[in-house]
């Protein structure tokens, strides 16, 4: 069984079921023509059918013997977590500081550089972004307690 296909197929079948349930609560046909539920109902049904085809194919497909790489996905998810934290901090400390922290985390933890290098890259990147986008191009970026 191809586990990835099996579980992603099941998840998409669940999403399809959710779409169909929601669509049934909206008008299917109105006197003027199709209602808000018409299109979602049909693509929701298609999603369920295709997901089940994927699940069935993964069950019939036999076992897959693949070396499982955990380090790569861990690094990718660590980057994603750093991004999520920096977005969560946008309103609190502003764009410049949260971007500097994000850069520091990538350089220091993902690429193992010395903290001085990471801090230098973080501060320089944040300053460059502030000057280019906020000052020169006038893009409105969330500001922190220090005003940037």
């Amino acid at each position, binding site marked *: 069984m191809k586990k990835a296909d099996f579980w992603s197929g099941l998840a998409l079948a669940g999403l399809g079921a959710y779409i169909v349930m929601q669509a049934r609560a909206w008008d299917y046909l109105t006197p003027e023509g199709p209602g808000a539920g018409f299109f979602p109902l049909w*693509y929701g049904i298609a*999603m369920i059918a295709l997901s089940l085809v994927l699940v069935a194919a993964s069950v019939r497909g036999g076992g897959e013997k693949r070396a499982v790489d955990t380090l*790569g996905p861990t690094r*990718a*998810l660590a980057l994603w977590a750093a991004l999520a934290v920096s977005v969560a901090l946008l309103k609190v400390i502003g764009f410049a500081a949260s971007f500097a922290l994000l850069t520091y985390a990538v350089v220091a933890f993902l690429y193992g550089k010395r903290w001085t290098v990471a801090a230098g*890259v973080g501060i320089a990147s944040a300053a460059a972004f502030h000057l280019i986008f906020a000052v020169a191009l006038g893009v409105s*970026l969330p500001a922190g307690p220090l005003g940037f």
Partner: protein
Amino acid sequence: MDIIGGLWQGFMVALAPYNLLWCFIGVLLGTLVGIMPGLGPAATIAMLLPLTFKMEPATAMIMLAGIYYGAKYGGSTTSILLNVPGESASVVTCLDGYQMARQGRAGAALGIAAIASFVAGTVGVLGLMLVAPPLARFALTFSSPEYFALMSLGLAMVVLLAGKSMVKALLAMLVGLWIASMGTDLFSSTSRFTFGNMEMLDGIDFVVVAIGVFAIGEVMASVESREEGQVLPVPKGLRNLLPTMQDMKDCRFAFVNGSVVGFLVGVLPGAGSTIASFLSYGLEKAVSKRPEMFGHGAPEGVAAPEGANNSETGGALVPLLTLGIPGSGTTAILLAALILWGLRPGPLLIQDNPTLFWGLVASMYIGNVMLLVLNLPLVPAFAQVLRLPVYILYPLILGVSLVGVLSVSGSVFDASMLVAFSLLGYAMRKLDYPSAPLILGLVLGDGMERALRQSLMMSQGDLSILVSRPASAIMLALAVLILVAPLARGFNRWRQKAIES
């Protein structure tokens, strides 16, 4: 407006100093992102799209298109010097380009790539200029049923060639349709899939999804490995970058082959520049008097695919600018850009916005000349970009992505959605779900639903309207055939072989 008159007007637009400057910035950025593995034109255009909102649409289109075709030029540099394609269309260039570089002929390989790109890129623009206006005039006869059928055909083509598994490609497209449905239904004012969140009432901004799935999803996939490639040295001086007369003689058919194959493949939705470059390489090898040289440093093995992937750009803009149907992820983002600038992509675009269409065509002629001039003498300088450490490059991409999203609405909620869609983009890569059908489903979903509902309003709910009009019936039949044909084993084997190659 005739072609000569249109082109004259286009050059008046494109030669304005402001537009020339943005054309130059576009092709320069395109070359740089083409050189950098892990950052393609789709991601770059998505990231920079919000910054174009204050520009004139013609200027913004000239710049974004410059990124699109400029990336095709830049993509060859990494293929030749690093054996790593800068973008997918340059995969096949690795075969002979890297071998030439290993034999000490990196300069000639880069020179041939630049010349082939220039010749074929120019032919592609010529094709766009000649084919687009009559096609747009023909499409003026289309009504809602034809548009629904056309979008269905476009999506079917993209699904057909998007990945190894058609089921996964179809599912990705359906997820795109679902995301497109989020927000307030404009026909009935019903809130759909908003999860009770007020900020979802306007739906999810296309830019957020595109940047998350393409740009950050790609960075997450790239960051998995800490290794960096070894760059082969580039000879300095223009003389060392010019191919020999014998090289040019060997490549003369490849220039023509790349130009024609690239343009024709580009016009077909879903085929894209990667397939164009493979087809062109395969054709070149098939008709060559020395096929055994291919894969061992044959100059025509560089010229044919590099030409094809540049000519494809002109072809891909034909359905986008005449029918409002994109054929790839990058053209889908360009379509979204046209909509965001307040234009209505479709058969009336050329008639209503001649400045934009002809300005773009003229700027592409100029941009191709700029790229040739940039790429021959400045390749050694561009190659230095490959020495930029990834631990600096990746945070920069994340930063530009965040700024891109924040500049659309200034909403931290959109930034949170970006985080969610970047995880979706990464998961799709890991689970082998192609992202182009999702983006196309998202871009076309709204128009497709509107066309279907308008068709059924016209017929008072009678579905036969979709098949009772000849053009609509033919396109829907083709779409069904495309989706059903892979059930035939022989066809599916051909399809999978084409995608795997």
